[in-house]
């Protein structure tokens, strides 16, 4: 209960037929003439860890942006814990902790200030604010580093700091866009350890995108395979692999549904992603 201890007014999730964490139907979004997301339906149960898999340009991030109220869908509906995102975006945002793809902490503030900023933006009451910030930092193993400027952090530490920022509001849904992209294997394992720990302690629903199949295999209860803006298959990793026969890997499943591997895709995002990643590196370096 680390991240949630001391939350005063929060009632536990109502028992009985709780609304699903996410229900979206018929989502559609286009950038100009390019149809980025087409007829996407998702049903994610409360408490689930759900992975949205696909290559760059598959429409994962656009889908995430619609689920987090950043984009208004051209068509379709989104409900987060039963709250309609189009009608009550402010309410939906209170339920979500969001970690975007890029390392996005403010390098000119300390780690603690970064978390406090989000505590304030989520209206965490002043009398519990300090305590909640400390808890979030300690849950991510950043108590000591919290006093230092983020400029001095490693990539893995910044990711954990972003998780602390997302957690300070004790969100019911954690949305992670490529949480381990660009991190070295040790930092990746570290981030996963913290996400897994968080799940055990607070049963937060987690929705993440990734293109690391082995991570999805290990950490997600269910996955959806996305390609060219549509969802090609949904199920547990075991189900999807079993569907293909003995000894199949999630990579094989992906190849089966999309007719390609994750690595050969360069249709979109390529140079922009690289540029952005470099800019992030420069900014934080």
């Amino acid at each position, binding site marked *: 209960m680390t991240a949630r201890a001391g*939350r*005063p*007014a*929060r*009632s536990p*999730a*109502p028992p009985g037929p*709780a*609304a699903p964490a996410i229900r979206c139907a018929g989502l559609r979004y286009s950038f100009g003439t390019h149809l980025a997301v087409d007829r996407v339906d998702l049903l994610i149960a409360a408490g689930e860890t759900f992975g949205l898999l696909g290559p760059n340009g598959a429409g994962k991030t656009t889908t995430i*942006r619609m689920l*987090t*109220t*950043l*984009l208004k869908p051209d068509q379709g509906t989104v409900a*987060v*814990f*039963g*709250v309609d995102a*189009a*009608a*009550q*975006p*402010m*309410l*939906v*945002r*209170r*339920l*979500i902790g*969001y*970690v*975007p*793809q*890029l*390392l*996005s*902490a*403010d390098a*000119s*503030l*300390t780690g603690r*200030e970064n978390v406090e*900023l*989000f505590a*304030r*933006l*989520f*209206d965490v009451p002043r009398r519990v604010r300090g305590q909640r910030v400390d808890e979030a930092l300690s849950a991510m193993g950043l108590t000591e580093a919290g006093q230092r*400027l983020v400029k001095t952090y490693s990539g893995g530490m910044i990711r954990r700091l*972003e998780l602390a*920022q997302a957690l300070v*509001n004790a969100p*019911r849904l954690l949305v992670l866009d490529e949480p381990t992209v660009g991190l070295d294997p040790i930092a990746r394992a570290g981030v996963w350890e913290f996400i897994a720990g968080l799940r055990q302690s607070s049963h937060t629903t987690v929705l993440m995108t990734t293109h690391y199949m082995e991570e999805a295999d290990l950490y997600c209860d269910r996955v959806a395979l996305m390609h060219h803006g549509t969802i090609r298959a949904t199920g547990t990793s075991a189900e999807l692999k079993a569907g293909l026969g003995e000894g199949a890997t999630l990579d094989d499943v992906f190849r089966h549904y999309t007719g390609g591997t994750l690595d050969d895709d360069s249709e979109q995002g390529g140079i922009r992603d690289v540029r*952005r990643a470099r*800019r*992030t590196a420069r*900014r934080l370096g």
Partner: protein
Amino acid sequence: MTSAAPGAPPAASADPPRPGPPGLPAGRPQAGLRRLASRVATLCWVELRKIRHDRTELYTRAIQPALWLLIFGETFTRIHAIAAPNGIPYLDFLAPGILAQSTLFIAIFYGIQIIWERDAGVLAKLMVTPTPRAALITGKAFAAGVRSIVQAAVIVVLSAVLGVTLTLNPLKLLGVALIVVLGSAFFSCLSMSIAGVALSRDRLMGIGQAITMPLFFSSNALYPERLMPGWLQAISKVNPLSYEVSALRWLLIGVPTNLALDTGVLAGATVAGITVSSLLLPRLAR
């Protein structure tokens, strides 16, 4: 409990959300105002923390106004090229103009920060908090004002050291702070609006460079309006910087002006600026 949405957060559980028209946040207007005040306070707090962690900008930005006052001001005072009203020394007349100029320079490049935040994904994260677009922009506009106040304090001290006779009336100095905040809020909104159109740092830098000097020279910062040719007077009349300078000049050295008009124009321009940049913000978030 049945009335509360299943996902109702702590803040809303005591006050069940009622369905509002799409796109509008649920809740009473006071709640909206309280949230606005809270967001403005938060973003100003962030700005103060940043200034505290890194003061270099404060010093480097003091160099240019110091040069204007020391070289331009001292020289033009000596050669009596520009006749200031009521026979006051030209340096005294210039000081409020340079104060306004240096806060203009801070504010006009403030949009760079929002583009940086967009490129870094910070803006997306801010926009997934329960913060309406207008509150985010207002907060940033006032944060620019906070930075300008700190800068203004440096220039007021510098002017006093150079022998400018400034007011010591605390109410008037408070007024100076208010005018500086309003002016910076407007020009930072102008900058954020340009950011929403230009969408890139380089372009914003270019446009910023291109408009700062015309804004400065077409205002009454360097010379009284009555010395300008007619066409320039007309431009000066629609330049918010002129109203900022006039207000500062009255507050700091007592040159008469219509303070209500000056403040009204700045406040109106700020509200318009906040509206336009809030409308353009979704372009940055896309």
